[in-house]
């Protein structure tokens, strides 16, 4: 059996296992392990199992995950999230779907703090899902909003996705960061538009709240001051050079714990409970990440990415045609692979073609990162959807995937606009860095 055939078979088996609702991480472990054993040998598979587990569990970048989860949990337990949503409700509650829009804007704000979609979806999920529930928002809408809104984390700088793209393709990180700003805001706008349309078609999805007076609004905002202070402290600390984004997660967690202790809203028992819940959510997320890193070497050894790339070059399409096919390939691969792995496996094949055709590499980077983000919310392996599921265990996965559809369409619309108007991506880097 050829390596390519083994790889294809592996993907089919993975699909079947997933549809048979074998836990996602277990299915990826099993297929990755078996595939590496077939293509190499069992001792390699065992060695990778050991090294990937330990490497990811001790990664200095991923420390951000448990810490932001803890921050979100404690913010909920101390009522800080509640205060935040009371304020948002007082301001935009009378608009249908207003809280969902406020959440997306919150995701955009959090994106400026975190470079990762996973961290964004996790923290915003912890903070917002129960709150939208409280105001009778439809679960499909609320979970869809968080899963999709989290993807802003990688488009709005700082972004680990752009850093990896930049290093893989020798492009400027600064230019890419700037190039992501307007598309990020455009995506945010199209998410808000999607929410408005959903609430127009299904008014029950985001029910209208009572109108409030100016003094009620002011009182609600004053009530949200503690959490607003924490948010400003963390964002300000990063941009002011006091700490790194990873450390910001620890500072944020420490700040909400301190606030809870000082105001006596946080007993030791509740704090401990929040930490245990955080550890469980961390385990869910990290196991999927580790399992994804067993699939990567399997696919690399199967040479499937090279095979797909060479087949694509054989088609000899036009500039726009090639771009469309490449993005379509990313959309399909994105259904199965973790985004960064996909970049590493495919960019060496696609990028030289892109340069040959005279496609602007910065513009291409923005398109690729947005397409990868669509993969994060598309079935069957949609990491952000799993993240939201880990935060809202009672909501069936099918509902979350259904809830995500309008936002996936909004992303597609944004992608088409970015393709049609390269200036949206290139305006800021061209004016500010030349």
């Amino acid at each position, binding site marked *: 059996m050829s390596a390519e055939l083994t790889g294809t078979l592996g993907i089919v088996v993975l699909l079947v296992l997933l549809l048979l609702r*074998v836990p996602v*991480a277990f299915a990826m472990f*099993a297929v990755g392990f078996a595939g590496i054993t077939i293509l190499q040998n069992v001792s390699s598979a065992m060695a990778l199992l050991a090294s990937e587990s330990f490497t990811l*569990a001790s990664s200095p970048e*991923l420390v951000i995950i*448990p810490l932001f989860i803890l921050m979100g949990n404690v913010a909920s337990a101390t009522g800080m999230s509640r205060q935040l949503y009371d304020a948002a409700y007082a301001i935009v509650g009378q608009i249908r779907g207003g809280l969902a829009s406020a959440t997306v804007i919150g995701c955009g704000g959090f994106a400026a703090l975190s470079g990762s979609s996973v961290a964004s979806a996790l923290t915003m999920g912890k903070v917002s899902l129960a709150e939208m529930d409280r105001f009778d928002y439809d679960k499909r809408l609320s979970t869809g909003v968080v899963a999709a809104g989290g993807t802003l984390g990688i488009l709005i700088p700082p972004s680990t996705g752009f850093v990896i793209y930049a290093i893989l393709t020798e492009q400027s990180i600064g230019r890419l960061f700037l190039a992501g700003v307007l598309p990020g805001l455009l995506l945010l706008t199209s998410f808000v538009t999607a929410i408005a349309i959903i609430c127009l078609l299904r008014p029950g999805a985001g029910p209208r709240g009572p109108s409030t007076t100016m003094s009620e609004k002011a009182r609600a905002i004053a009530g949200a001051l503690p959490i607003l202070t924490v948010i400003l402290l963390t964002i300000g600390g990063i941009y002011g050079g006091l700490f790194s984004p990873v450390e910001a997660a620890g500072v944020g967690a*420490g700040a909400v714990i301190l606030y809870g202790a000082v105001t006596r809203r946080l007993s030791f028992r509740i704090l401990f409970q929040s930490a245990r819940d955080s550890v469980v959510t961390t*385990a869910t997320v990290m*196991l999927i990440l580790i399992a994804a890193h067993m699939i990567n070497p399997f696919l690399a050894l199967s040479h499937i990415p090279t095979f797909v790339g060479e087949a694509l070059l054989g088609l000899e399409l036009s500039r726009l045609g090639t771009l469309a096919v490449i993005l379509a390939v990313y959309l399909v691969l994105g259904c199965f692979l973790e985004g960064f792995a996909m970049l590493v496996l495919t960019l060496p094949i696609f990028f030289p073609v892109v340069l040959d055709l005279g496609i602007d590499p910065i513009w291409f980077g923005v398109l690729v990162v947005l397409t990868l983000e669509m993969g994060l919310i598309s079935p069957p392996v949609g990491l952000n959807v799993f993240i939201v599921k880990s935060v809202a265990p009672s909501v069936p996965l*099918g509902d979350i995937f259904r809830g995500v559809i309008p936002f996936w369409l909004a992303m597609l619309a944004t992608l088409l606009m970015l393709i049609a108007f390269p200036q949206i991506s290139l305006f800021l880097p061209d004016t500010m860095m030349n």
Partner: protein
Amino acid sequence: MRAVRRAADGLIGLSATIGALGLFVETGVILIDVIGRAFGSPLFGSQDVITMTMVVVVFGGMALCDRVGGHIGVDIFEARYPDWLNRWIDIVSALLGAAIFAAIAWAVWESSKISQMLNLSTNLIGLPKAWFQWALAGFSALTALGLLLRAAELTATGRDVRKDDTRLTDSPA
């Protein structure tokens, strides 16, 4: 079976407690480091402590994560499958999970011998890597046992601990 379950739940709770304490250590070390650095004296070796403690945080919670049904599956077709199929899927998945965690425990244990041979430790304050590999292996072995017990319960009595009303997380360790 009940006594075994009680003992297992005790260990699972202890494992998660250690993970939770690790999370407090992470937070504390970062705060001390950040504040110290602002005054010109950061905590030496903070990153060593943070990354190694992370191993404990991540794997400490694995057993409890499975116990409370935290591992995510694609449940879109669950309602359309016959009961017997769902039951079999649950049992086989649990056994598969047990095999995976047993393999992780074994592989990391073997790898810890190499770490000792190569004298591997963290770069600033020299925390031996093998210690944390032992912890990872131990937590994984416990998770494997938990999955095995869940499979046994499902087979023998049909009880699915993940659907227990009294969530383990609601009781103190």
